[in-house]
C-alpha cells in the first residue's frame, strides 16, 4: 500500500522552480531515502507533502487521503524531524517534548507517558530538566527527534537529522532511526550524506533541480549507471604473457598493472572464473581479489554530471 503518492507536483518560488513535475510513491514500512545536493528540492518536497507550502499543481495523497483536503487527519499520523533544531529555548527538554505530545491531542496524563517513552528512546532521561541552550549539538539533535516522534507517528519525515554532529551522536541517531523503522514507522529520510543513505535506506530517490532523476533500490540505481566493473587482483609476480592473455579474454575491456595489482576492466556481471583460470595456468599466485562497484556518488555523478557535495 502506498503511504505517499505524489503525482506531477510542481512548486515555484517566483521564477525559481523548486519542484518540477515530481512524482513519487513510498510504500508502508519503507525507509525511503531522498538523496540530493543542497538546494535540490528535498526539503521543499517534504514541505509540500505536509502542506507547509501549497503545491502549484499536481496531486498529493498521504495514507490514501488527499492533501490538503484531509490535512488535519493526515498530520495527526505524521511526525517531522526538521533539518534545523526546532524547539523552544524557554522550555525544558521534558516540557518541549510534552508540549508537542499535547499538540497532537493527547491529554496531559497521556502526554506524560509518551514524553517519558520518547525521552528514554533518545536517551535524554538524564537531561530532562535542562533547557535547550544547555545541551550539546548531539543532544539537541536527539531532542529534535524526540519532539518529532513523541506521538508515535506512522510516517516520519527526517530532514537531514544528523547535520553537524559528532560521529558518536550520529551513530546513536542512525540506530534510533533503524529502531523506529523496525517498530513499523515508514520513514522518509533526506540527506546529502550518501553513506548514511546507503547504510539506512531500502529505496532511494535521487533528486536534482526539483526532479527525481532516478529511483529504486541501491542495486537498481547502481545497475542503471554501471557498464563496467573493475577487478583488482593482488599478485606476487608477473609472467611475460599474462597481461596479453588476460586482455584477450571475452568481456575484458582493459588490463593494467601497477605493482602489485592487476586492474582488469570487465563488462558488468562478467564471471571471474576465466580470469582466475588464466592466472592458474600462468602459475601466478594471487592473495586478494576485489571487485569495485559504483557508490551512490558515482551514480549521482553519472546521472547529473556533478557530485553530491556541490
Amino acid at each position: 500500500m502506498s503511504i505517499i503518492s505524489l503525482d506531477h507536483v510542481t512548486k515555484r518560488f517566483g521564477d525559481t522552480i523548486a519542484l518540477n513535475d515530481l512524482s513519487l510513491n513510498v510504500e508502508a514500512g519503507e525507509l525511503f531515502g531522498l538523496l540530493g545536493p543542497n538546494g535540490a528540492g528535498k526539503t521543499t518536497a517534504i514541505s509540500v507533502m505536509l502542506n507547509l507550502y501549497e503545491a502549484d499543481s499536481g496531486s498529493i495523497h498521504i495514507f490514501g487521503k488527499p492533501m490538503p483536503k484531509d490535512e488535519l487527519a493526515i498530520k495527526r499520523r505524521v511526525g517531522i524531524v526538521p533539518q534545523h533544531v526546532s524547539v523552544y529555548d524557554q522550555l525544558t527538554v521534558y516540557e518541549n517534548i510534552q508540549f508537542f505530545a499535547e499538540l497532537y491531542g493527547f491529554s496531559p496524563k497521556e502526554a506524560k507517558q509518551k514524553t517519558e517513552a520518547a525521552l528514554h528512546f533518545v536517551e535524554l532521561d538524564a537531561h530532562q530538566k535542562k533547557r535547550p541552550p544547555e545541551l550539546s549539538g548531539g543532544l539537541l539533535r536527539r531532542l529534535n527527534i524526540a519532539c518529532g516522534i513523541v506521538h508515535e507517528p506512522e510516517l516520519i519525515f527526517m530532514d537531514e537529522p544528523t547535520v553537524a554532529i559528532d560521529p558518536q551522536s550520529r551513530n546513536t541517531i542512525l540506530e534510533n532511526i533503524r529502531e523506529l523503522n523496525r517498530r513499523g514507522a515508514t520513514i522518509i529520510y533526506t540527506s546529502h550524506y550518501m553513506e548514511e543513505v546507503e547504510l539506512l535506506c531500502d529505496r532511494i530517490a535521487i533528486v536534482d533541480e526539483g526532479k527525481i532523476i532516478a529511483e529504486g533500490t541501491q542495486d537498481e540505481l547502481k545497475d542503471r549507471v554501471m557498464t563496467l566493473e573493475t577487478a583488482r587482483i593482488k599478485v606476487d609476480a608477473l609472467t611475460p604473457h599474462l597481461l596479453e592473455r588476460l586482455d584477450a579474454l571475452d568481456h575484458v575491456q582493459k588490463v593494467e598493472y601497477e605493482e602489485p595489482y592487476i586492474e582488469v576492466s570487465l563488462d558488468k556481471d562478467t564471471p571471474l572464473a576465466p580470469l582466475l583460470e588464466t592466472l592458474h595456468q600462468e602459475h601466478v599466485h594471487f592473495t586478494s581479489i576485489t571487485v569495485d562497484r559504483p557508490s551512490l556518488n558515482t551514480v549521482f555523478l553519472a546521472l547529473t554530471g556533478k557530485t553530491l557535495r556541490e
Partner: protein
Amino acid sequence: MWTFIKYDVKQRLRDRATLFWMLIFPLILIFGLGTMLSAVFSDTFKLPVTNVAYVESSTDQYREPLEAFLKEEDIQTFIRLVPYADLPSAEQGVNDGDADVILQLDGPDITLFYEEPTTVEFDVLDAILGQYTAIANQQITLAEAGVSAPYENEAWLDTESVDLAGRTPTSLEYFTVTISIMTALFGSFYITAMAREEQPNTGSYLRIQAAPVRTVEYRLARTFSRYVIILLQLILLFWFSHFVYRTFDLANVQFGYVILSWLALTAYGVAIGFLIVNLPKLSATTKDAIVNGFVAILMILSGGYVPGFDQVTLNYAPWAAYVFMPIFMRDGMLAVLLREGDMNLYWQSLGLLGIHLLILIAFSYILSKGVKRHGTH
C-alpha cells in the same frame, strides 16, 4: 488552544528580556519618576517657607490691604515676613542669609527682588503678587471712577493659574495614559513578533505548521496568552504605583470604562500590528523598527512617559486628537475614566476608535492580498 496558552505564558514568564521590559523597567520608571514627581503631584504638597525681607515706604491706603493679604493663613504657610527699614539693610539681610527675597512697597508700587536663577517658590510668590497688584490696580481704577468694588478675599488667589496640579496631570492620569498606551502598543509589538516567528518552514513554527492545528486557533491562543501577560503587567504596575504615588484615589476610578477602553486599545494595537506585518517589501527587522518607533513616538506625543506632552502635541496639531490614540488625546477623557465626566465624549471616542479599526483592518486586508499575490519564500 489551552496547550498553546499554557506553554506560551510559561515561556514569556521565563524570558528575561520580556520580564525586564514588561515588569522591571516600568517598575524602575514608576519608582524613579514617582520619587521625583510625587511631591509636585501630591495634594498635600507644601511650598517651603520663604523668608521675605519687607521694606515699606508707602501710605496706609496701599500698606494695609497688602499687609492684610500677606497675613492670610494660606500665604503665611509659605511666607515669613521680616521687616527692614530700607532697601540697603534688606539687601544686607539677604546677603547674611536672614532673608531669601526682598519685597518692596514704595508708594503704590510693589516690587519683588530676587536673584537669578529662581526656584519654584519665588515663581509662585511672583505670580501671586502679580495677581495681587493687578487686582489692586483694578480696584483703584474702579474707585477713581467712583464705582464700588468690594474687597473680595477669594479673588486674590487664582487657583487655575497658580495651582500646579491644574496645569500638570496627576499621577493617576499620568499612569492611566502611560499604561493604556502600553496596552495598545505592546499589542502591536506582539503581533509583529508573532508574525516574525511565523515564517514558513523556520524555527519551532515549522513543527506547529506540521501539527494537526488550525492556524487561526494558534494565532488566537497566542494573542490571548500575550494579552494575559499584559493584563498581569497592568495589574502589577497599577498596584505598585498605587504605593509609590500616594495621590491615587481609586474610589473615583470608573474601572468598567477603563477596562472597556483597554479592550478597545488592545484591538487598536493588534490592528496596527497586523497593518505593519502586512507592509510589503520590508524585512521583519524593519517592521520591528517601525513598531518600536511608533510606540515611542505615540507614547511621548500622547503624554505617556512625559506628563503633559499631549497638550503640547495638541497645541501644535489639534487634529492629533482624532488621528493618534483617539481615546487618550481627547480633552475630558481622563475625567470620564478617573472621575465623573461627559459620557458622550467617551462613547464618541470609542466610535472614533472603531472607525480607526475599520480603516486599519481594510488597509491590512488590501496589503495582505497584495503579499499573497506576490508570494513569499
